[in-house]
């Protein structure tokens, strides 16, 4: 079954409506720009929560959500511990904390030690989200200069979720998406514009 607008939306197609319950996105160096491109194609009333880990300097706490919020059409907030993950909201991990998802679809923070030098860690978010949403989860890896997220993307794949990597040739820093691709767990390799178009295809009511 194909959306009528699939071809015109973008070369990446669009996500089938109703199937996916949540989106997780990870990125590092160069990831901010790619993320803004993706988010700019999503609009108010989006049908699932979008949960983001972006590696930034620990002193920039609070700044990240503000920066994204000013530049995209969806509400963006820094994740709070125990907060329910609501559709149409972009949650970003606070610097210095891991962000996880609980089975009752609430967000959880942890001050555990960094995982492979990263806190927040993309792997930690993706693995926990895969356990909660399994095949109803979309995981996206954007530009970055390290390989955080490769393990996480393979976990999402293992639970039947949809895995997307930014096309490394479009990434400012290709190591992160390339590492994800190298796990052979990535289903779609797309430019940020195409990722935005694809996810935007979910932005229809579930009627």
């Amino acid at each position, binding site marked *: 079954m194909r959306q009528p607008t699939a071809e015109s939306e973008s070369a990446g197609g669009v996500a089938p409506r109703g199937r996916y319950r949540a989106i997780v996105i990870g990125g590092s160096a160069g990831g901010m720009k790619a993320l803004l491109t993706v988010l700019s194609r999503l609009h108010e009333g989006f049908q699932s929560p979008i949960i983001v880990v972006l590696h930034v300097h620990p002193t920039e706490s609070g700044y990240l959500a503000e920066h994204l919020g000013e530049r995209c059409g969806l509400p963006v907030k820094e994740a709070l*511990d125990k907060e329910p993950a609501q559709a149409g909201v972009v949650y970003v991990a606070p610097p210095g904390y891991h962000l*996880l998802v609980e089975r009752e679809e609430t967000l959880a923070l942890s*001050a555990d030690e960094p995982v492979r030098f990263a806190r927040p860690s993309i792997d930690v978010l993706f693995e*926990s989200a895969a356990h909660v949403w399994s095949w109803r989860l979309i995981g996206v890896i954007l530009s970055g200069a390290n390989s955080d997220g490769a393990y996480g993307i393979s976990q999402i794949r293992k639970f039947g979720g949809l895995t997307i990597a930014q096309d490394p040739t479009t990434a400012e820093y290709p190591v992160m998406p390339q590492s994800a691709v190298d796990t052979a767990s990535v289903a779609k390799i797309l430019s940020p514009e195409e990722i935005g178009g694809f996810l935007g295809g979910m932005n229809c009511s579930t009627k």
Partner: protein
Amino acid sequence: MNNADIENIEISLLLEAIYERYGHDFRHYARASISRRIRQFLNNASGCASISEMIPKVLHDESFFERLINNFSIPVTEMFRDPLVYRSIRQKIVPLLKTYPFVRIWHAGCATGEEVYSMAILLKEEGLYDRATIFATDFNDVALSKAKEGIYAVDSIKQFTGNYQQSGGSASFSEYYHARYDSIAIQHSLKRNITFANHNLATDGVFGEMHLIMCRNVLIYLDSALQSRVANLFGESLTYGGFLCLGTKETLDFTDGGKHFKVIDEPARIYQKKAAGFAP
């Protein structure tokens, strides 16, 4: 039912076995985080093929259990962590503490002690140390004995010093420790009024008439039911008008334990116990 659901059953059974056998209650820890640590232990150190296989080992092999629960305490900490919180304590709490003839402070979940010594330094600089009694508790004995020693790696000193300066510290931070070969030792005089003790927030009771409770980056490890228990425990352990300080990403908003408290400083997560008769 998918594999994640099955794994969740295994984890519930494992935590139940630990509780029944050893009395350590992790059943109401935030599930996502403890699941991650169990998986990690399973893959790296258990010699088991599944979480279910760990259950008989936990029941019959005490050393296996001890290795496992070592992974459940995360004593990650630093001195003057979140410096602005200490600044706020100086500005908003200290003036009230100064009105008491003696001051009782409880650090719940003190890990390896950095937070406790930070408080000791702050009290010293504010002229409050001599009338203060500090209780520092954790359920991790290994962390507690490190806390008692007060010896830290020399490479943390740069971060500690930076934090101290941002926290509004008025002296030179190096006055508070002796440098050794590859470590630093906290000044003996800072330890005088500190009592370290084992206390488990999940199972143990009220802890005296406190004026200030510091419990930072501990509640995030608990689910909301256990958070409520702990918030009530803190409510009962504080004098009226006493203060509670949580981690900067923690909140009482998603539990019903918040009813005892009003917010004093939102970003620093400083709460104050409401007076008796104060309508909830």
